Protein backbone atom coordinates (compact mmCIF):
# COMPACT_ATOMS: atom_id res chain seq x y z
CA UNK A 1 0.00 0.00 0.00
CA UNK A 2 1.35 3.34 -1.03
CA UNK A 3 1.27 6.20 1.49
CA UNK A 4 2.01 9.66 0.17
CA UNK A 5 2.94 12.73 2.17
CA UNK A 6 -0.42 14.29 1.46
CA UNK A 7 -2.14 11.56 3.48
CA UNK A 8 -0.74 12.96 6.68
CA UNK A 9 -2.30 16.04 8.18
CA UNK A 10 -1.02 17.69 11.31
CA UNK A 11 -4.04 18.37 13.46
CA UNK A 12 -4.66 21.88 14.61
CA UNK A 13 -1.93 23.45 12.50
CA UNK A 14 -2.99 26.21 10.18
CA UNK A 15 -0.01 26.64 7.88
CA UNK A 16 -1.32 29.53 5.80
CA UNK A 17 -1.46 32.12 8.56
CA UNK A 18 2.05 31.31 9.78
CA UNK A 19 3.48 31.71 6.31
CA UNK A 20 1.82 35.04 5.86
CA UNK A 21 3.18 36.50 9.04
CA UNK A 22 6.77 35.70 8.16
CA UNK A 23 8.96 38.48 6.85
CA UNK A 24 11.51 37.64 4.17
CA UNK A 25 14.80 36.97 5.89
CA UNK A 26 17.49 39.50 5.07
CA UNK A 27 21.22 39.12 5.11
CA UNK A 28 23.34 41.65 7.02
CA UNK A 29 24.19 43.45 3.81
CA UNK A 30 20.62 43.63 2.56
CA UNK A 31 19.45 44.90 5.90
CA UNK A 32 22.08 47.62 6.01
CA UNK A 33 21.36 48.62 2.39
CA UNK A 34 17.65 48.86 3.18
CA UNK A 35 18.40 51.25 6.02
CA UNK A 36 20.95 53.23 4.01
CA UNK A 37 18.45 53.74 1.20
CA UNK A 38 16.17 55.61 3.61
CA UNK A 39 18.95 58.08 4.39
CA UNK A 40 18.61 60.73 1.68
CA UNK A 41 21.83 62.58 2.48
CA UNK A 42 23.91 59.40 2.40
CA UNK A 43 22.33 58.33 -0.89
CA UNK A 44 23.03 61.75 -2.42
CA UNK A 45 26.65 61.46 -1.26
CA UNK A 46 26.93 58.02 -2.78
CA UNK A 47 25.49 59.37 -6.03
CA UNK A 48 27.98 62.27 -6.08
CA UNK A 49 30.87 59.88 -5.43
CA UNK A 50 29.79 57.60 -8.27
CA UNK A 51 29.53 60.59 -10.62
CA UNK A 52 32.96 61.86 -9.53
CA UNK A 53 34.52 58.44 -10.05
CA UNK A 54 32.89 58.06 -13.46
CA UNK A 55 34.09 61.52 -14.47
CA UNK A 56 37.61 60.66 -13.41
CA UNK A 57 37.48 57.60 -15.63
CA UNK A 58 35.77 59.23 -18.63
CA UNK A 59 36.45 62.94 -18.08
CA UNK A 60 39.92 63.30 -19.60
CA UNK A 61 38.67 62.00 -22.94
CA UNK A 62 35.41 64.00 -22.96
CA UNK A 63 36.79 67.45 -23.70
CA UNK A 64 38.91 66.34 -26.64
CA UNK A 65 42.06 67.89 -25.18
CA UNK A 66 45.02 65.99 -23.83
CA UNK A 67 45.86 66.90 -20.23
CA UNK A 68 49.54 67.53 -20.91
CA UNK A 69 49.46 69.17 -24.32
CA UNK A 70 50.40 72.82 -24.00
CA UNK A 71 49.02 75.50 -26.29
CA UNK A 72 50.81 78.84 -26.30
CA UNK A 73 47.90 80.55 -28.09
CA UNK A 74 45.41 79.79 -25.33
CA UNK A 75 47.09 80.74 -22.07
CA UNK A 76 44.89 81.31 -19.01
CA UNK A 77 41.59 81.26 -20.87
CA UNK A 78 38.56 81.66 -18.62
CA UNK A 79 35.94 78.88 -18.69
CA UNK A 80 34.14 78.86 -22.02
CA UNK A 81 32.30 76.52 -24.36
CA UNK A 82 35.61 75.53 -25.88
CA UNK A 83 37.46 74.94 -22.58
CA UNK A 84 34.81 74.09 -19.98
CA UNK A 85 37.02 74.83 -16.99
CA UNK A 86 39.37 77.22 -18.82
CA UNK A 87 43.07 76.72 -19.44
CA UNK A 88 46.16 77.02 -17.22
CA UNK A 89 49.27 79.23 -17.64
CA UNK A 90 50.70 76.74 -20.16
CA UNK A 91 47.49 76.59 -22.15
CA UNK A 92 46.52 73.10 -21.02
CA UNK A 93 42.82 72.32 -20.83
CA UNK A 94 41.78 72.42 -17.17
CA UNK A 95 38.76 70.15 -17.63
CA UNK A 96 41.04 67.33 -18.71
CA UNK A 97 43.56 68.16 -16.04
CA UNK A 98 41.02 68.25 -13.22
CA UNK A 99 39.76 64.76 -14.06
CA UNK A 100 43.23 63.42 -14.75
CA UNK A 101 44.26 64.81 -11.34
CA UNK A 102 41.18 63.19 -9.88
CA UNK A 103 42.37 59.83 -11.16
CA UNK A 104 45.61 60.21 -9.21
CA UNK A 105 43.91 61.61 -6.11
CA UNK A 106 41.28 58.87 -6.02
CA UNK A 107 43.83 56.18 -6.85
CA UNK A 108 46.04 57.30 -3.98
CA UNK A 109 42.97 57.34 -1.76
CA UNK A 110 41.80 53.86 -2.77
CA UNK A 111 45.16 52.06 -2.84
CA UNK A 112 46.36 53.78 0.32
CA UNK A 113 43.15 52.92 2.12
CA UNK A 114 43.35 49.31 1.01
CA UNK A 115 46.86 49.02 2.48
CA UNK A 116 46.01 50.91 5.66
CA UNK A 117 42.88 48.88 6.32
CA UNK A 118 44.52 45.52 5.55
CA UNK A 119 47.56 46.17 7.72
CA UNK A 120 45.54 47.82 10.47
CA UNK A 121 42.94 45.04 10.58
CA UNK A 122 45.56 42.29 10.71
CA UNK A 123 47.62 44.07 13.33
CA UNK A 124 44.64 44.95 15.49
CA UNK A 125 43.13 41.48 15.11
CA UNK A 126 46.31 39.69 16.12
CA UNK A 127 47.06 42.08 18.95
CA UNK A 128 43.55 41.89 20.34
CA UNK A 129 43.08 38.14 20.05
CA UNK A 130 46.49 36.99 21.31
CA UNK A 131 46.52 39.56 24.08
CA UNK A 132 48.92 39.44 26.98
CA UNK A 133 52.50 40.51 26.50
CA UNK A 134 52.34 40.49 22.68
CA UNK A 135 49.40 42.87 22.83
CA UNK A 136 51.27 45.10 25.25
CA UNK A 137 54.31 45.46 23.01
CA UNK A 138 52.29 45.79 19.83
CA UNK A 139 50.37 48.64 21.40
CA UNK A 140 53.62 50.26 22.52
CA UNK A 141 54.79 50.31 18.90
CA UNK A 142 51.59 52.06 17.89
CA UNK A 143 52.00 54.53 20.73
CA UNK A 144 55.41 55.50 19.41
CA UNK A 145 54.11 55.84 15.86
CA UNK A 146 51.13 57.90 16.97
CA UNK A 147 53.22 60.29 19.01
CA UNK A 148 55.14 61.36 15.92
CA UNK A 149 53.04 64.06 14.27
CA UNK A 150 51.97 62.29 11.10
CA UNK A 151 52.57 65.18 8.71
CA UNK A 152 56.15 65.48 9.95
CA UNK A 153 56.75 61.79 9.36
CA UNK A 154 55.13 61.83 5.96
CA UNK A 155 57.30 64.77 4.95
CA UNK A 156 60.47 63.04 6.14
CA UNK A 157 59.54 59.77 4.48
CA UNK A 158 58.71 61.37 1.18
CA UNK A 159 62.01 63.26 1.33
CA UNK A 160 63.76 59.96 1.81
CA UNK A 161 61.80 58.00 -0.78
CA UNK A 162 61.85 60.78 -3.33
CA UNK A 163 58.72 61.88 -5.12
CA UNK A 164 56.46 59.73 -7.20
CA UNK A 165 53.23 57.88 -6.88
CA UNK A 166 54.62 54.80 -5.15
CA UNK A 167 56.69 56.60 -2.54
CA UNK A 168 53.76 58.91 -1.90
CA UNK A 169 51.55 55.94 -1.10
CA UNK A 170 54.21 54.35 1.11
CA UNK A 171 54.75 57.60 2.99
CA UNK A 172 51.02 58.10 3.51
CA UNK A 173 50.27 54.54 4.57
CA UNK A 174 53.34 53.95 6.76
CA UNK A 175 51.61 55.75 9.61
CA UNK A 176 48.01 55.72 8.47
CA UNK A 177 47.09 52.25 9.66
CA UNK A 178 47.48 52.85 13.39
CA UNK A 179 43.99 54.22 14.07
CA UNK A 180 42.40 51.28 12.27
CA UNK A 181 44.53 48.85 14.26
CA UNK A 182 43.46 50.44 17.54
CA UNK A 183 39.81 50.36 16.62
CA UNK A 184 39.85 46.75 15.43
CA UNK A 185 41.75 45.71 18.54
CA UNK A 186 39.10 47.26 20.77
CA UNK A 187 36.35 45.52 18.85
CA UNK A 188 38.16 42.16 18.86
CA UNK A 189 38.68 42.40 22.62
CA UNK A 190 34.90 42.52 23.00
CA UNK A 191 34.05 39.86 20.43
CA UNK A 192 36.57 37.28 21.58
CA UNK A 193 34.68 36.82 24.84
CA UNK A 194 31.62 35.54 22.99
CA UNK A 195 30.59 31.90 22.87
CA UNK A 196 31.09 31.28 19.15
CA UNK A 197 34.80 31.95 19.57
CA UNK A 198 34.95 29.44 22.40
CA UNK A 199 33.07 27.00 20.16
CA UNK A 200 35.60 27.51 17.37
CA UNK A 201 38.49 27.02 19.79
CA UNK A 202 37.02 23.79 21.15
CA UNK A 203 36.47 22.51 17.62
CA UNK A 204 40.19 22.91 17.09
CA UNK A 205 40.30 25.95 14.82
CA UNK A 206 43.74 27.50 14.50
CA UNK A 207 44.48 31.02 15.74
CA UNK A 208 44.83 32.31 12.18
CA UNK A 209 41.47 30.78 11.23
CA UNK A 210 39.72 32.26 14.24
CA UNK A 211 41.08 35.72 13.52
CA UNK A 212 40.39 35.60 9.79
CA UNK A 213 37.09 33.72 9.69
CA UNK A 214 35.45 34.51 13.00
CA UNK A 215 36.71 37.76 14.44
CA UNK A 216 37.41 40.03 11.48
CA UNK A 217 34.13 39.36 9.63
CA UNK A 218 32.37 40.50 12.78
CA UNK A 219 34.16 43.83 12.67
CA UNK A 220 33.12 44.44 9.06
CA UNK A 221 30.74 47.23 10.06
CA UNK A 222 33.38 49.44 11.59
CA UNK A 223 35.86 48.53 8.86
CA UNK A 224 33.50 49.84 6.19
CA UNK A 225 32.89 53.04 8.13
CA UNK A 226 36.63 53.41 8.65
CA UNK A 227 37.19 53.08 4.90
CA UNK A 228 34.91 56.01 4.20
CA UNK A 229 36.97 58.17 6.55
CA UNK A 230 40.39 56.95 5.48
CA UNK A 231 39.94 57.61 1.75
CA UNK A 232 39.24 61.34 2.08
CA UNK A 233 41.90 61.60 4.78
CA UNK A 234 44.52 60.32 2.36
CA UNK A 235 43.29 62.56 -0.46
CA UNK A 236 43.59 65.47 1.96
CA UNK A 237 47.08 64.47 3.06
CA UNK A 238 48.16 64.14 -0.57
CA UNK A 239 46.85 67.63 -1.24
CA UNK A 240 48.97 69.02 1.59
CA UNK A 241 52.07 67.23 0.36
CA UNK A 242 51.46 68.56 -3.14
CA UNK A 243 51.09 72.01 -1.69
CA UNK A 244 54.55 71.67 -0.17
CA UNK A 245 55.93 70.44 -3.47
CA UNK A 246 56.33 66.88 -2.23
CA UNK A 247 53.38 65.39 -4.09
CA UNK A 248 53.06 63.90 -7.57
CA UNK A 249 55.52 65.22 -10.12
CA UNK A 250 54.93 66.85 -13.49
CA UNK A 251 53.60 66.10 -16.07
CA UNK A 252 51.25 64.17 -13.84
CA UNK A 253 48.96 66.03 -11.52
CA UNK A 254 46.46 65.64 -8.72
CA UNK A 255 43.73 67.81 -7.24
CA UNK A 256 46.11 68.99 -4.55
CA UNK A 257 48.84 69.77 -7.06
CA UNK A 258 46.38 71.65 -9.29
CA UNK A 259 45.10 73.72 -6.38
CA UNK A 260 48.65 74.41 -5.20
CA UNK A 261 49.86 75.58 -8.59
CA UNK A 262 46.74 77.70 -9.08
CA UNK A 263 47.67 79.67 -5.96
CA UNK A 264 50.34 81.54 -7.92
CA UNK A 265 47.73 83.04 -10.21
CA UNK A 266 44.94 83.59 -7.72
CA UNK A 267 45.01 87.37 -8.26
CA UNK A 268 44.03 87.12 -11.91
CA UNK A 269 42.59 83.67 -12.51
CA UNK A 270 40.68 82.52 -9.41
CA UNK A 271 38.77 79.88 -11.41
CA UNK A 272 41.96 77.84 -11.68
CA UNK A 273 41.84 77.32 -7.93
CA UNK A 274 38.08 76.94 -7.77
CA UNK A 275 37.61 73.73 -9.76
CA UNK A 276 40.20 71.44 -8.15
CA UNK A 277 39.28 72.78 -4.69
CA UNK A 278 35.62 72.13 -5.40
CA UNK A 279 36.41 68.52 -6.30
CA UNK A 280 38.46 68.00 -3.11
CA UNK A 281 35.72 69.53 -0.97
CA UNK A 282 32.97 67.52 -2.72
CA UNK A 283 34.86 64.27 -2.26
CA UNK A 284 35.58 64.98 1.40
CA UNK A 285 32.02 66.09 2.06
CA UNK A 286 30.45 63.11 0.33
CA UNK A 287 32.70 60.57 1.97
CA UNK A 288 32.12 61.91 5.47
CA UNK A 289 28.35 62.13 4.98
CA UNK A 290 28.26 58.65 3.48
CA UNK A 291 30.37 57.40 6.37
CA UNK A 292 27.92 58.85 8.88
CA UNK A 293 25.05 57.24 7.02
CA UNK A 294 26.82 53.88 6.79
CA UNK A 295 27.55 53.92 10.50
CA UNK A 296 23.86 54.32 11.26
CA UNK A 297 22.90 51.73 8.67
CA UNK A 298 25.40 49.07 9.66
CA UNK A 299 24.96 49.38 13.38
CA UNK A 300 21.66 50.93 14.48
CA UNK A 301 22.84 50.70 18.10
CA UNK A 302 25.44 53.41 17.43
CA UNK A 303 22.93 55.88 16.01
CA UNK A 304 23.43 59.17 17.78
Amino acid at each position, binding site marked *: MQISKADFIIEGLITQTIDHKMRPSLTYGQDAWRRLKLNKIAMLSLFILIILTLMCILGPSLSGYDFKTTNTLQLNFPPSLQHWFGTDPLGRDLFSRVWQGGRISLLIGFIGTFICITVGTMYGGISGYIGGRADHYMMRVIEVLV*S*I*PSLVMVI*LLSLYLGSGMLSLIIALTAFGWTSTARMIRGQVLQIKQQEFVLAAVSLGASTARIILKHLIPNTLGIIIVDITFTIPGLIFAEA*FLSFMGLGVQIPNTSWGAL*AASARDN*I*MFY*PYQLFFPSLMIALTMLSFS*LLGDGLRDALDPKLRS
Partner: protein
Amino acid sequence: MSKYMLKRLFSMFLTLFVVITIVFFLIRMVPGDPLASMARNLPEQVKANFYAEYGLDKPLITQYFIYMKHLLHGDFGESLVYLGQPIKEIILRAIPPSMVINIHALLWGVTTGIGLGILAAYKRGKWPDHLVMFIAILGVSIPSFVLATALQYLFSVQLNWLPTIGWTSEPGMKQFKYSIMPTIALSFGIIAVYSRYMRASVLDVLNQDYILTAKAKGVSGFSLAYKHVLRNSFIPAITILGPQIAGIIVGSFVIESIFGIPGFGQVYVSAITNRDFTQILGQTVIINALYIFSLFVVDIVYGLVDPRIRVFNK
Protein backbone atom coordinates in the same frame (compact mmCIF):
# COMPACT_ATOMS: atom_id res chain seq x y z
CA MET B 1 49.07 57.75 42.46
CA SER B 2 52.76 58.64 42.43
CA LYS B 3 53.63 55.14 41.25
CA TYR B 4 51.31 55.50 38.28
CA MET B 5 52.72 58.94 37.51
CA LEU B 6 56.28 57.65 37.64
CA LYS B 7 55.44 54.76 35.35
CA ARG B 8 53.73 57.12 32.96
CA LEU B 9 56.65 59.52 33.08
CA PHE B 10 59.09 56.72 32.38
CA SER B 11 57.16 55.47 29.35
CA MET B 12 56.91 59.08 28.18
CA PHE B 13 60.68 59.47 28.11
CA LEU B 14 61.11 56.06 26.54
CA THR B 15 58.72 57.00 23.74
CA LEU B 16 60.53 60.28 23.23
CA PHE B 17 63.87 58.49 23.07
CA VAL B 18 62.64 55.98 20.49
CA VAL B 19 61.10 58.75 18.42
CA ILE B 20 64.27 60.84 18.42
CA THR B 21 66.30 57.79 17.37
CA ILE B 22 63.93 56.97 14.50
CA VAL B 23 63.87 60.56 13.29
CA PHE B 24 67.64 60.93 13.54
CA PHE B 25 68.35 57.97 11.29
CA LEU B 26 65.49 58.75 8.97
CA ILE B 27 66.79 62.26 8.39
CA ARG B 28 70.33 61.12 7.85
CA MET B 29 69.22 58.63 5.23
CA VAL B 30 67.74 61.42 3.12
CA PRO B 31 70.05 61.85 0.15
CA GLY B 32 71.83 65.17 -0.24
CA ASP B 33 73.32 67.34 2.49
CA PRO B 34 73.37 71.12 2.81
CA LEU B 35 77.15 71.37 3.09
CA ALA B 36 77.72 69.70 -0.28
CA SER B 37 76.79 72.77 -2.35
CA MET B 38 78.98 75.05 -0.24
CA ALA B 39 81.96 72.69 -0.20
CA ARG B 40 81.82 71.84 -3.90
CA ASN B 41 84.57 74.19 -5.02
CA LEU B 42 86.85 73.73 -2.02
CA PRO B 43 90.12 71.79 -2.18
CA GLU B 44 89.95 68.25 -0.79
CA GLN B 45 91.76 69.03 2.45
CA VAL B 46 89.66 72.10 3.23
CA LYS B 47 86.54 70.13 2.40
CA ALA B 48 87.53 67.38 4.83
CA ASN B 49 88.20 69.97 7.55
CA PHE B 50 84.89 71.61 6.75
CA TYR B 51 83.00 68.35 7.28
CA ALA B 52 85.04 67.54 10.37
CA GLU B 53 84.13 70.91 11.86
CA TYR B 54 80.47 69.89 11.82
CA GLY B 55 81.17 66.33 12.90
CA LEU B 56 79.86 64.89 9.64
CA ASP B 57 83.06 62.91 8.94
CA LYS B 58 82.47 60.38 11.71
CA PRO B 59 80.41 57.22 11.26
CA LEU B 60 76.66 57.75 11.59
CA ILE B 61 76.39 55.82 14.83
CA THR B 62 79.09 57.95 16.50
CA GLN B 63 77.31 61.07 15.28
CA TYR B 64 74.15 59.73 16.87
CA PHE B 65 75.77 59.31 20.28
CA ILE B 66 77.38 62.73 20.08
CA TYR B 67 74.04 64.27 19.17
CA MET B 68 72.26 62.53 22.03
CA LYS B 69 74.93 63.63 24.48
CA HIS B 70 74.58 67.23 23.38
CA LEU B 71 70.81 67.00 23.45
CA LEU B 72 70.87 65.85 27.06
CA HIS B 73 72.81 69.03 27.83
CA GLY B 74 70.14 71.06 26.10
CA ASP B 75 72.30 71.75 23.05
CA PHE B 76 70.56 71.39 19.70
CA GLY B 77 73.65 72.10 17.65
CA GLU B 78 74.23 74.58 14.86
CA SER B 79 72.35 75.19 11.66
CA LEU B 80 74.02 73.67 8.62
CA VAL B 81 72.56 76.28 6.31
CA TYR B 82 72.91 79.46 8.33
CA LEU B 83 76.38 78.58 9.56
CA GLY B 84 77.19 79.75 13.05
CA GLN B 85 73.52 80.10 14.02
CA PRO B 86 72.59 77.94 17.01
CA ILE B 87 69.32 76.03 16.45
CA LYS B 88 68.12 77.08 19.86
CA GLU B 89 68.16 80.75 18.87
CA ILE B 90 66.44 80.13 15.55
CA ILE B 91 63.69 78.26 17.33
CA LEU B 92 63.30 80.82 20.11
CA ARG B 93 62.95 83.55 17.50
CA ALA B 94 60.30 81.60 15.64
CA ILE B 95 58.08 80.77 18.59
CA PRO B 96 56.51 84.19 19.43
CA PRO B 97 54.81 84.78 16.03
CA SER B 98 53.41 81.24 16.06
CA MET B 99 52.12 81.73 19.57
CA VAL B 100 50.31 84.96 18.77
CA ILE B 101 48.49 83.47 15.80
CA ASN B 102 47.69 80.19 17.47
CA ILE B 103 46.47 81.63 20.75
CA HIS B 104 44.10 83.88 18.79
CA ALA B 105 42.94 80.94 16.70
CA LEU B 106 42.53 78.63 19.65
CA LEU B 107 40.59 81.10 21.79
CA TRP B 108 38.31 82.10 18.94
CA GLY B 109 37.97 78.56 17.59
CA VAL B 110 37.33 76.79 20.88
CA THR B 111 34.80 79.28 22.22
CA THR B 112 32.90 79.47 18.94
CA GLY B 113 33.07 75.72 18.44
CA ILE B 114 31.84 74.94 21.93
CA GLY B 115 29.07 77.52 21.66
CA LEU B 116 27.90 76.17 18.31
CA GLY B 117 28.10 72.60 19.59
CA ILE B 118 25.92 73.36 22.60
CA LEU B 119 23.47 75.24 20.42
CA ALA B 120 23.26 72.32 18.00
CA ALA B 121 22.70 69.80 20.79
CA TYR B 122 19.92 71.82 22.39
CA LYS B 123 18.23 72.44 19.03
CA ARG B 124 18.72 68.89 17.89
CA GLY B 125 17.04 68.10 14.58
CA LYS B 126 16.02 71.73 13.97
CA TRP B 127 17.64 74.13 11.53
CA PRO B 128 20.36 75.49 13.87
CA ASP B 129 21.55 71.92 14.35
CA HIS B 130 21.66 71.27 10.61
CA LEU B 131 23.45 74.58 10.00
CA VAL B 132 26.11 73.90 12.64
CA MET B 133 26.68 70.36 11.40
CA PHE B 134 26.98 71.67 7.86
CA ILE B 135 29.63 74.18 8.97
CA ALA B 136 31.41 71.42 10.89
CA ILE B 137 31.57 69.10 7.90
CA LEU B 138 32.55 71.96 5.61
CA GLY B 139 35.32 72.89 8.02
CA VAL B 140 36.99 69.53 7.64
CA SER B 141 36.25 69.31 3.90
CA ILE B 142 38.14 72.33 2.64
CA PRO B 143 41.94 72.16 2.73
CA SER B 144 43.28 75.00 4.84
CA PHE B 145 45.52 76.24 2.04
CA VAL B 146 42.49 76.67 -0.19
CA LEU B 147 40.63 78.51 2.54
CA ALA B 148 43.65 80.72 3.23
CA THR B 149 44.02 81.56 -0.45
CA ALA B 150 40.33 82.31 -0.77
CA LEU B 151 40.56 84.66 2.23
CA GLN B 152 43.54 86.44 0.68
CA TYR B 153 41.64 86.82 -2.57
CA LEU B 154 38.53 88.17 -0.88
CA PHE B 155 39.96 90.49 1.80
CA SER B 156 43.18 91.60 0.15
CA VAL B 157 42.67 91.49 -3.61
CA GLN B 158 38.98 92.25 -3.94
CA LEU B 159 38.15 94.31 -0.85
CA ASN B 160 41.65 95.60 -0.11
CA TRP B 161 40.97 95.60 3.64
CA LEU B 162 43.87 93.56 4.95
CA PRO B 163 47.52 93.09 4.00
CA THR B 164 48.02 89.87 1.98
CA ILE B 165 51.11 88.60 3.75
CA GLY B 166 53.60 89.82 6.28
CA TRP B 167 54.30 90.15 9.96
CA THR B 168 55.60 92.60 12.50
CA SER B 169 57.02 91.57 15.83
CA GLU B 170 55.68 94.63 17.63
CA PRO B 171 52.32 94.02 19.24
CA GLY B 172 49.71 96.52 18.18
CA MET B 173 47.18 97.39 15.53
CA LYS B 174 49.49 96.48 12.67
CA GLN B 175 50.23 93.06 14.07
CA PHE B 176 46.55 92.52 14.74
CA LYS B 177 45.75 93.30 11.10
CA TYR B 178 48.35 90.80 9.94
CA SER B 179 46.98 88.18 12.28
CA ILE B 180 43.29 88.36 11.29
CA MET B 181 43.37 86.15 8.19
CA PRO B 182 45.69 83.44 9.57
CA THR B 183 43.51 83.33 12.68
CA ILE B 184 40.34 82.80 10.66
CA ALA B 185 41.99 80.20 8.46
CA LEU B 186 43.30 78.26 11.44
CA SER B 187 40.22 78.54 13.62
CA PHE B 188 37.86 77.21 10.95
CA GLY B 189 39.12 73.68 11.46
CA ILE B 190 39.09 74.06 15.24
CA ILE B 191 35.48 75.28 15.17
CA ALA B 192 34.55 72.26 13.06
CA VAL B 193 36.13 69.76 15.43
CA TYR B 194 34.87 71.31 18.65
CA SER B 195 31.31 71.88 17.53
CA ARG B 196 31.02 68.22 16.51
CA TYR B 197 32.63 67.05 19.71
CA MET B 198 30.57 69.27 21.97
CA ARG B 199 27.32 68.36 20.24
CA ALA B 200 27.94 64.65 20.71
CA SER B 201 29.10 65.20 24.27
CA VAL B 202 26.11 67.35 25.30
CA LEU B 203 23.69 64.90 23.70
CA ASP B 204 25.35 62.09 25.58
CA VAL B 205 25.06 63.89 28.91
CA LEU B 206 21.43 64.87 28.24
CA ASN B 207 20.57 61.18 28.01
CA GLN B 208 22.13 60.35 31.37
CA ASP B 209 20.02 59.35 34.33
CA TYR B 210 21.36 62.08 36.57
CA ILE B 211 19.90 64.71 34.28
CA LEU B 212 16.53 63.07 34.69
CA THR B 213 17.08 63.07 38.45
CA ALA B 214 18.02 66.73 38.39
CA LYS B 215 14.93 67.56 36.35
CA ALA B 216 12.78 65.48 38.70
CA LYS B 217 13.96 67.36 41.74
CA GLY B 218 13.07 70.62 40.07
CA VAL B 219 16.37 71.97 38.73
CA SER B 220 15.73 73.82 35.53
CA GLY B 221 16.89 76.41 33.05
CA PHE B 222 20.30 77.95 33.45
CA SER B 223 21.22 76.01 36.57
CA LEU B 224 20.50 72.67 34.92
CA ALA B 225 22.34 73.63 31.78
CA TYR B 226 25.40 75.00 33.52
CA LYS B 227 25.81 72.87 36.64
CA HIS B 228 24.66 69.54 35.34
CA VAL B 229 24.91 69.39 31.57
CA LEU B 230 27.77 71.62 30.48
CA ARG B 231 30.23 70.84 33.24
CA ASN B 232 30.04 67.20 32.38
CA SER B 233 30.14 67.74 28.64
CA PHE B 234 33.40 69.67 28.82
CA ILE B 235 35.31 66.58 29.89
CA PRO B 236 35.72 64.93 26.45
CA ALA B 237 36.74 68.30 25.01
CA ILE B 238 39.80 68.26 27.27
CA THR B 239 41.15 65.23 25.40
CA ILE B 240 41.43 67.10 22.13
CA LEU B 241 42.56 70.33 23.77
CA GLY B 242 45.89 68.85 24.91
CA PRO B 243 47.55 68.27 21.54
CA GLN B 244 46.15 71.59 20.38
CA ILE B 245 47.88 73.45 23.20
CA ALA B 246 51.12 71.85 22.07
CA GLY B 247 50.19 73.15 18.64
CA ILE B 248 50.21 76.73 19.94
CA ILE B 249 53.97 76.70 19.93
CA VAL B 250 54.45 74.40 16.96
CA GLY B 251 52.24 76.48 14.71
CA SER B 252 50.96 75.51 11.33
CA PHE B 253 53.23 74.65 8.43
CA VAL B 254 50.81 75.59 5.71
CA ILE B 255 49.16 78.70 7.11
CA GLU B 256 52.43 80.25 8.19
CA SER B 257 54.00 79.63 4.79
CA ILE B 258 51.03 81.16 2.99
CA PHE B 259 50.77 84.28 5.13
CA GLY B 260 54.53 84.76 5.40
CA ILE B 261 54.65 84.55 9.18
CA PRO B 262 58.19 83.82 10.36
CA GLY B 263 56.97 81.22 12.85
CA PHE B 264 57.95 77.76 13.92
CA GLY B 265 56.10 76.05 11.07
CA GLN B 266 57.53 78.21 8.31
CA VAL B 267 61.05 77.79 9.65
CA TYR B 268 60.50 74.05 9.72
CA VAL B 269 59.28 73.93 6.14
CA SER B 270 62.26 75.96 4.95
CA ALA B 271 64.59 73.68 6.91
CA ILE B 272 63.08 70.73 5.07
CA THR B 273 63.56 72.38 1.69
CA ASN B 274 67.16 73.22 2.59
CA ARG B 275 67.82 69.74 4.03
CA ASP B 276 69.13 71.38 7.20
CA PHE B 277 69.54 68.18 9.26
CA THR B 278 70.23 69.66 12.64
CA GLN B 279 67.38 72.09 12.42
CA ILE B 280 64.82 69.54 11.21
CA LEU B 281 65.95 67.25 14.00
CA GLY B 282 65.89 69.95 16.66
CA GLN B 283 62.42 71.11 15.72
CA THR B 284 61.09 67.55 15.42
CA VAL B 285 62.40 66.79 18.91
CA ILE B 286 60.59 69.84 20.28
CA ILE B 287 57.35 69.02 18.45
CA ASN B 288 57.43 65.47 19.80
CA ALA B 289 58.37 66.41 23.33
CA LEU B 290 55.51 68.91 23.44
CA TYR B 291 53.07 66.46 21.95
CA ILE B 292 53.95 63.59 24.28
CA PHE B 293 54.00 65.92 27.26
CA SER B 294 50.57 67.29 26.40
CA LEU B 295 49.15 63.76 26.26
CA PHE B 296 50.62 63.15 29.69
CA VAL B 297 49.07 66.33 31.08
CA VAL B 298 45.71 65.46 29.54
CA ASP B 299 45.84 62.10 31.29
CA ILE B 300 46.48 63.72 34.65
CA VAL B 301 43.92 66.51 34.18
CA TYR B 302 41.36 63.99 33.02
CA GLY B 303 41.65 62.12 36.29
CA LEU B 304 41.37 65.33 38.27
CA VAL B 305 38.22 66.66 36.57
CA ASP B 306 36.42 63.36 36.27
CA PRO B 307 36.56 61.24 39.42
CA ARG B 308 34.84 58.42 37.52
CA ILE B 309 38.10 57.77 35.70
CA ARG B 310 40.48 56.53 38.32
CA VAL B 311 43.68 56.41 36.31
CA PHE B 312 45.70 56.72 39.47
CA ASN B 313 44.64 53.40 40.89
CA LYS B 314 45.52 51.33 37.87
